[in-house]
């Protein structure tokens, strides 16, 4: 008999908890539907109720400040990414719950507080946020007496990646740590951009057809091809692809100010490509003029019987180009010594 009551109490209890848990998920879902992209908007009024135990799901909290005058570029970059993160999750899990059959009511919800929106100072105070962006996670909690201070900070992969890559990294770590299923990056098809592309393509084709003689002139212009190829070669030989593939940052920062050259043979800033391309370009141009312009000017002036001019141009041009080549190649070696400390050769400095 006693056993019977026990089991009834147990059943009642379990039903009660079930109801409460379901309620917690429902409540969160309701809140989520209110915000944009299924993201719960945390304000001073609602954050305690949203984050209050008990709950059966993970809640990811994103603290950010997208205002321009705050100047948090990472926040602005992550704004879209966080939306994508939430959107991808709700695309496959419309009610926010992972998998009813295997993990029961456990799900994942997204919350956000943007300092720029105002009305959420208490939220930032609660998290003692002194810098943004921040990413926190609240785990499932069955004890109704637990407070809302038990959360963990998540690492934002900020340095090496951005865009879809970062979203994918976050998705992977969420999937792993929260043991989620079927969480994949979902990219909505942008019909507007597709239409614009198609229209502009048609427009360009039409214009090309109309001005076909100009187009042919451009295509057959040897000098254009020459300049294009030379330019292409110069940037390719300067680690342009390295910047593209590795996504190097533009320039670095050190104690004494901006750093233009990163030491080491295997890494570089994007600005290095530009500086060195400029050096190469100048050197190549000087060599070209050296070989072609000097003989040309000599014969030109001699034909016109202006010997004095011929002599002058020969001397001046030679010295001009030789000095340019000298200075720029010593600059090149100087720059290379910044990359490779042990390089023994130098002209100046």
């Amino acid at each position, binding site marked *: 008999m006693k056993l019977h009551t026990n089991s009834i109490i147990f059943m009642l209890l379990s039903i009660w908890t079930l109801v409460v848990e379901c309620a917690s998920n429902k409540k969160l879902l309701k809140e989520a539907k209110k915000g944009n992209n299924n993201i719960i908007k945390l304000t001073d009024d609602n954050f305690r109720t949203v984050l209050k135990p008990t709950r059966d799901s993970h809640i990811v909290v994103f603290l950010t400040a997208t205002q321009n005058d705050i100047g948090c570029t990472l926040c602005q970059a992550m704004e879209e990414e966080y939306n994508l993160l939430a959107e991808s999750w709700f695309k496959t899990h419309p009610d926010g719950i992972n998998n009813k059959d295997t993990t029961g009511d456990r799900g994942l919800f997204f919350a956000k507080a943007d300092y720029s929106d105002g009305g959420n100072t208490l939220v930032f105070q609660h998290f003692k946020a002194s810098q943004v962006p921040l990413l926190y996670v609240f785990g499932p909690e069955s004890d109704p007496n637990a407070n809302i201070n038990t959360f963990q900070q998540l690492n934002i992969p900020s340095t090496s990646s951005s865009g879809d890559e970062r979203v994918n990294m976050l998705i992977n770590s969420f999937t792993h740590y929260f043991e989620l299923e079927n969480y994949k990056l979902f990219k909505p098809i942008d019909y507007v951009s597709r239409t614009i592309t198609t229209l502009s393509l048609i427009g360009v084709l039409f214009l090309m057809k109309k001005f076909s003689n100009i187009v042919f002139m451009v295509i057959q212009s040897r000098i254009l091809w020459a300049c294009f190829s*030379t330019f292409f070669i110069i940037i390719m*030989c*300067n680690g342009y692809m390295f910047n593209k593939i590795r996504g190097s940052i533009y320039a670095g920062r050190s104690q004494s100010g901006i750093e233009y050259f990163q030491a080491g043979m295997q890494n570089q800033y994007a600005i290095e490509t530009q500086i060195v391309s400029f050096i190469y370009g100048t050197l190549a141009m000087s060599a070209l003029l050296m070989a072609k312009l000097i003989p040309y000017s000599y014969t030109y002036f001699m034909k016109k019987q202006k*010997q004095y001019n*011929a002599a002058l141009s020969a001397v001046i041009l030679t010295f001009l180009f030789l000095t340019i080549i000298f200075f720029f190649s010593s600059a090149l070696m100087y720059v290379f010594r910044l990359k490779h400390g042990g390089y023994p050769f130098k002209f100046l400095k």
Partner: protein
Amino acid sequence: MNISNNTKKSILSSISLVLKLAIFICLIGAATSSRLFSVIRYESIIHEFDPWFNYRATRYLVKNGFHKFLNWFDDKTWYPLGRITGGTLYPGLMTTSGAVWYLMNKIMKIQVNIRDVCVLFAPAFSGITAIFTYLFTKNCYNDDQLAGLLSAAFIAIAPGYISRSVAGSYDNEAIAITLLMSTFYLWIKAMRTGSISWACSAAISYFYMVSAWGGYVFITNLIPLHVFILLLMGRYSTKLYSAYSVWYCIGTLASMQIPFVNFQPIRSNDHMSSLGVFGLIQFFMFGDSIKSTISTKNFKIFLKFAVIGLISFGILGLFVLTYFGLIAPWTGRFYSLWDTGYAKDHIPIIASVSEHQPTAWPSFFFDTQFLIWLFPCGVFMLFMELQDEHIFIIAYSVLCSYFAGVMVRLMLTLTPIICVCAAVTLSNVFKYNLRIWSTIKKVKNKSDNRFTELCVLISKLITVLSFLGYLILFVQHCTWVTSNAYSAPSVVLLSGSTDADGSPIFIDDFREAYSWLRYNTDEDAKVAAWWDYGYQIGGFADRTTLVDNNTWNNTHIAIVGKAMSSSEERSYEILKEHDVDYVLIIFGGLLGFNGDDLNKFLWMVRIPEGIWPDEVNEQSFFTADGQFRVDAAASDTMKNCLMYKMSYHDFPGIMGNPTQSTDRVRGATIDESHVLPLKYFEEVFTTENWLVRIYKLKDLDLEGRDLGDVYDMDNTQTKKKSLKKPKLEPRIN
């Protein structure tokens, strides 16, 4: 007067011939001798990793003959799968050095060790490369001897080429660059003359190239590209037709004779462009002959229909063939050239190879010094004349500079064309400025132009002298780079310090470990190590390996990676399943050697993660804030994995402090409490500087207990008695 002029001319030409000969001898001397640093500093030894396989294969060839070599099934690698080595290698290198060895020993009766042939193979061939580069440049650039000689001199000492052809670097590239230049030279010759014999020679040279290096695909695409551009520019000629058709037919048929290449030339998409251009040029020929028989108006109609029909037919054919699987899908390596993000996302094995990394700008300067800025200038100059053969150089330059930017290893194919273009520039500079004698004569003549000519003379002299200065600096740069960067065999290391008598101290741990394996283990023992060391274990120690540098089976590599990154118990299971007896790891923590296994460790996680994402997870090897740490903060998965345990086994305590040691590579303090005991493996050998550590898998327990339990039980018992460290095996000196 006339006769004396003639004799003068003949004397001059014979003098120039003698001079040219002297220059060539000097060039070959310079090319060979600048590559001998490593032999002088270390010894006559095969370098690095891949050369060890080539060397092993060459020995097999010399011992067993060509027929057996082609049918060689190697059961000592990729255990238990084995490798059909004869059918999966490019035999050009081995057969060539085998032939040289045969010629010397059997015909000329000069006793030469096959090892010495292999070691000195690359320097010898670099001399030949210089000669072919001379011929190529001369033929490509208006028969300009000066440009030819300059380019030959550049290629002889350019570090970009030396990097792969120092003595001991016995790799496919050593012979491939020579064949690349010879094929290009013969192609230009064939294209200019339209002669079938030249085209045949080009095809034969191409065949030789196919037999030697996988990079032959570059030629397979470059020559059709050249032809294609010429066709687009309306420069079709019967010469071009005969040259390309002959080259393509004979070259393709010949290349299919190589077992490894097999039917690829007509199936794989890498080769499709050459087939497409072959079809196109037939069409041009057909159109050309039609044009001469019908009226212009009719020809235009014909052309319109033919073009539309041809294009639609071509596209349809491509789709149908791909759909039915007759054309092989694009290979991953090829993809990663065009879509640079591809490899990173899809094929970790490619991304893990350092040769496949993009090139930062210092590498270009390092490898070619001032040639790098003469290079675009030379391309521009070629545009100013733009003859058919100049287009070849331009196409080569543009295409290859892109490839070299994407992959470090393709610097090698870019270097020859940099040398050629730079030589073109310099020859243009010198051509005008070296006419000093005529200017001097004019000055002497006391004409009214005297002042002008004097000025011109001075400026010419200064130009020549200053460029001579740059050339001298280039030579010094090349010598410095070769001596400092490219002459280390990487099997033997220099410690940097010297002995009491001033001789350098070598770090010879690799050979120490390999010879221990050779003399202390069973002949059929299986050694598990990360794939980088597979070829060396095979070559030095002659033991069976699971994986090696021929990364043909990703899953098998992943198995080894999984074993290294799993917990000890699981690793033991995996390794026992594969019959492994010993595990060899590289540990640089004591020496400060950067390229050790812990630094490569993330690849041992990523590669298996691609296959068993539920068993191996990269994230779990990082700390909570996403860092890769090995000290106290390391994650539990990290501390429990086999690689960590093996690397730091007994490591704390060897540097004075009884419980701690510092890992000199990662700058981390390793405490005794972090390093969990090894229960299923026992240390059998560790080299002098701890660079290589070898562990043996304990035998299964006789009473069928789990080895972990056995260890725990023994350990509690010994603790009761006294703490006794396991004895190390005596070392072999």
